């Protein structure tokens, strides 16, 4: 038993030692829409991309994140209020678009065409930021009735994108930055500016982080001119409206 415990203790020690070597390598929990841009800003960071709400829930359960980058400000603000992360700052903005498969099987040419019966519309779940933005757009356009045509509520924006890009769904709401990643597979239909929700991304340092210097360095990089330039290149909007 003592021998087994010794082996166990050695294994645990070795594991923590290995983890401690990488002090500068931040673990970043980031919204799925940042999947392509973030690794370009900090190639050496470790990323976990998912729906922002799932990531926030994981952080509340003690997940070992250093940075939380959310597709809204509400989730990091709520984490901050409960002492789970620092005061969030806005680091970029985005817009919502409607996408259809490039073959456009349901012949959709505007958001208003979604009212037609039998259309297979895929949106994100209401807890996911893009899901609540979608509901806002539909409300702004007085189109909440099209929710009847929803065939699936996905867990993050990239799952919505995948279902439309695969031609399984007739239409879906995603960020304009997601639509750009598969230009050959989906067609983008713009949403009028007056119906756009305010899509602001918030970032914060996780309070339980063991690597706060690494976390701060990552956030600094994202906010730096170089980081912002990369975000713009991927279609994100400047963090402050000009």
């Amino acid at each position, binding site marked *: 038993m003592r021998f087994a415990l010794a082996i166990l203790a050695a294994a645990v020690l070795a594991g923590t030692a290995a983890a401690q070597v990488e002090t500068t390598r931040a673990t970043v929990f980031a919204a799925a829409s940042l999947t392509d841009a973030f690794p370009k800003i900090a190639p050496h960071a470790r990323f976990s991309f998912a*729906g922002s709400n*799932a990531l926030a829930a994981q952080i509340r359960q003690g997940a070992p994140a250093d940075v939380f980058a959310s597709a809204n400000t509400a989730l990091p603000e709520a984490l901050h209020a409960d002492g789970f992360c620092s005061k969030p700052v806005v680091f970029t903005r985005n817009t919502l678009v409607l996408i259809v498969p490039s073959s456009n099987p349901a012949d959709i040419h505007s958001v208003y065409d979604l009212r037609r019966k039998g259309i297979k519309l895929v949106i994100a*779940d209401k807890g996911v930021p893009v899901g609540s933005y979608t509901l806002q757009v539909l409300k702004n356009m007085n189109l909440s009735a099209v929710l009847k045509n929803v065939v699936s509520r996905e867990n993050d924006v990239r799952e919505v994108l995948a279902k439309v890009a695969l031609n399984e769904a007739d239409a879906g709401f995603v960020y304009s930055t997601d639509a750009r990643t598969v230009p050959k597979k989906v067609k983008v239909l713009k949403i009028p500016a007056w119906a756009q929700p305010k899509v602001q991304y918030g970032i914060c340092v996780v309070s339980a982080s063991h690597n706060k210097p690494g976390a701060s360095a990552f956030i600094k990089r994202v906010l730096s001119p170089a980081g912002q330039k990369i975000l713009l290149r991927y279609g994100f909007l400047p963090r402050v409206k000009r």
Partner: protein
Amino acid sequence: MSLRRALFGALTFGAAALALVFLVLPVAAIFLRVPPRKLVHQLSSPIVTDALIVSAKTTAIAQLLILLFGTPLAYLVASRRFRGRSFVVTLIELPLVLPPAVAGLGLLAALGRSGLLGTDIPFTQTAVVLAVAFVASPLYIRQAIASFEAVDPNLVAAARTLGAGPERTFFHVVLPLARGGLAAGTALSFARGLGEFGATIMFAGSLQGVTQTLPLAIYSAFAIDFDTAIAMGALLVAVSAALLILLKLVLAWQPSRQTSSFLSARSS
């Protein structure tokens, strides 16, 4: 010498205790996390009841299809010797070792709108049934093959000599003798079907009251309301445990040979 023996005993006991605690702890934690009264309250939310209905309905239909089509397949494989038989058995077992996400991709590639057969099945309850049937059927069919093989061929031959046709022999001799193993296979594949997640979320999506099964609802609730997720988890633990106990009871009723055929799960 006796020191070594004592050390060996202590090590074995310690490792066994550690393994047991490791297996029990997460399950116990689910029930300790939310007090029973709150648990019952969470279970009455429409998200939970809708998911429970979708899960029960799709898993039951899938299981029916598995029995209806899997039993003849298992019987043929068990009673015939033909070239490529072990290849067929491998094909049957493949979904068992396939990652569920790969199963979802395969179903989309085969039955998606722009898939091989080009159907309108994705996002419907039928899609959930097919996903469940695909991942759960090998558990039943494997077990059914083993149970049919364990039936004494002399009894089958005697029935045929006495003038019973193949159909009568099957229903009156083979099926009753194999029923314990078949029931065990049914319980196992039902439990696997109830827990199906990856293939379903890829092939059928997730919509409350239509395609959102309990595991999908747990995943979705996890990001919004941890207590509801835990309550649904407790529900699934209870149902799965009941199935397992049922399985043990069924096996206990059977002659020991059938029990061992289940345990060795011959796949020849």
